[in-house]
């Protein structure tokens, strides 16, 4: 135990902050993007819906390294779009924190999108119609009726998105790399120290990750729990 305390004192804590920051930013982006995409998709007819749904869900189904490969193809500073971004806006994605965010967002976004879509589809359309006949604007209907009513589904989607974004490894390692203090996330640090045979440090990080994971699960249950009370056992 005293070894752990000693370790905590000398440890480079930067991976935790990088992971948390990445998780928060990627979740915020995914949140708005996911709600927006979900709202667009449920308005489409069946065909367009299936196609769009497939595309938007793809990053979740693909191995993260494959997603990372595509991201590298797009953002590499040796390729057209990467060059354009660098020359015009001085934006660099590869091997930067922006790369961490991008990789995490792409991988975690489908969780937000799918949860939001499922929650929206459960909503009684009459609520929206009632809002309209009462003269409420579409924006007001969305933020004051639809989102609150879909609240539990959206909340659990947000938490899952955050968890996934924080733990992202495959695409991040390819796009952002593992630069200590810059793009070195917790997941990457664990992989790295294990390669060095430092199981104590790895174990320390694992404990931290487990604690965070339990907090996440607890939060989800807390938010969706109220609904579960009315579920009949079978």
């Amino acid at each position, binding site marked *: 135990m005293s070894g752990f305390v000693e370790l905590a004192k000398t440890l480079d804590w930067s991976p935790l902050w990088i992971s948390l920051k990445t998780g928060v930013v990627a979740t915020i982006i995914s949140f708005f993007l996911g709600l927006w995409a979900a709202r667009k998709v449920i308005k489409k007819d069946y065909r367009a819906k299936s196609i769009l749904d497939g595309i938007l869900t793809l990053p979740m189904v693909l191995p993260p390294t494959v997603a990372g490969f595509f991201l590298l193809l797009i953002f590499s500073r040796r390729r057209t779009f990467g060059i354009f971004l660098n020359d015009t806006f001085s934006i660099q994605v590869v091997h930067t924190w922006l790369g961490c965010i991008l990789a995490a967002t792409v991988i975690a976004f489908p969780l937000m999108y799918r949860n939001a879509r499922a929650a929206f589809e459960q909503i009684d359309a*009459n609520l929206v119609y*009632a809002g*309209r*006949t009462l*003269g409420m604007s579409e924006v007001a209907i969305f933020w004051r009726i639809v989102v609150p009513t879909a609240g539990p589904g959206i909340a659990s989607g947000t938490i899952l998105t955050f968890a996934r974004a924080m733990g992202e490894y495959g695409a991040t390692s390819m796009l952002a790399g593992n630069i200590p203090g810059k793009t070195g996330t917790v997941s990457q640090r664990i992989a790295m120290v294990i390669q060095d045979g430092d199981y104590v440090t790895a174990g320390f990080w694992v404990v931290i990750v487990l604690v965070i994971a339990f907090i996440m699960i607890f939060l989800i249950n807390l938010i969706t729990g109220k609904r579960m009370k009315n579920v009949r056992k079978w």
Partner: protein
Amino acid sequence: MKRLYADIHKRIDEFDLDVLIESDAARIGILGESGSGKSMTLRSIAGIETVDSGHVEAGGRVLFDSASKTDLKPQKRNVGYMFQNYALFPTMSVLKNVMAGLGRATEENRIKASDMLKRFRMDGFEDKLPGELSGGQQQRVALARIMVTEPELILLDEPFSALDSYLRDRMQVEMLEMLDEYDGQVVMVSHSRDELYRFSEELFILSDGHIIRHGEIKDVFREPGNAMAARLTGCKNFSKIRQIDGHTVEAADWGVTLKLKRKVPDTVHCIGYRAHRFEPVWGGMQDNCVKCDVVRVDDLPFEKNYYIRTLREDEPLCWSVQGEEQRIIDYRGLPDYLKLAEDDILLLE
């Protein structure tokens, strides 16, 4: 300026909605079975449902006109819509629900909303969530939410179907009271003839997407005009007829010849007779009588339905007996004949 005009054409797959509702009555009823297109008609008037072509006008304003490509958004129609399930916003308090249609949450709007709740005897419930209210209370909130926006037309979509039967009766009376001070037009659709009889001044009967009969409520019930409308107004007994002369017809399914004082138009090929209207006859046969040969009795809490054999095995006549009449039957036994009163014979096209 109280005049509703709704000419609506809409095709969905195999279903064809083609209705014309024109009325300056304050209380308009639309009667129809489920799937007849009555809710779709209401939704089209409110602008929730798209319409292929037609013209909709209410409160002196054109809401929809396919010729001039006018199609006001539901937000701009100023038409109140009460949904079957009331569609109260589940995450908002009762007060917030009523304020939802008023725009900004100003103090003035707050007062307006709580005054309206008071009028509907829902004061004290402002902070409750809709899920904590009974069905009847939810309905009052839904109506308050509509009334506070001062609509020019109110549409009620099966307003009582979500209520328990004991509450339904009370809310029907209450609804009439609550709408008492409202001077715009109200349209109610229902599959229940009782609800609509109580509520409407003018009735439109909708069947398979078309209006098959309309008119003043009492007229429509007295003279439904066609078999489908008669059935929807509660008539249970029908027979095909063969005209013998202008005043004599043979009710082919019942095996009885009827003599009528009024002239039977050529277009009439069916007659209807309401189950409550038979007159029992003991002893000898009179004119316009069927033999009272009971095949089955159906015991209901406050009435008995006797089923009388006819020429058609599968369709016996239904004779409903209540109260005093039942006591006479208990005393004298079943009658020998049932007489059809001339005024109650429905001539149907």
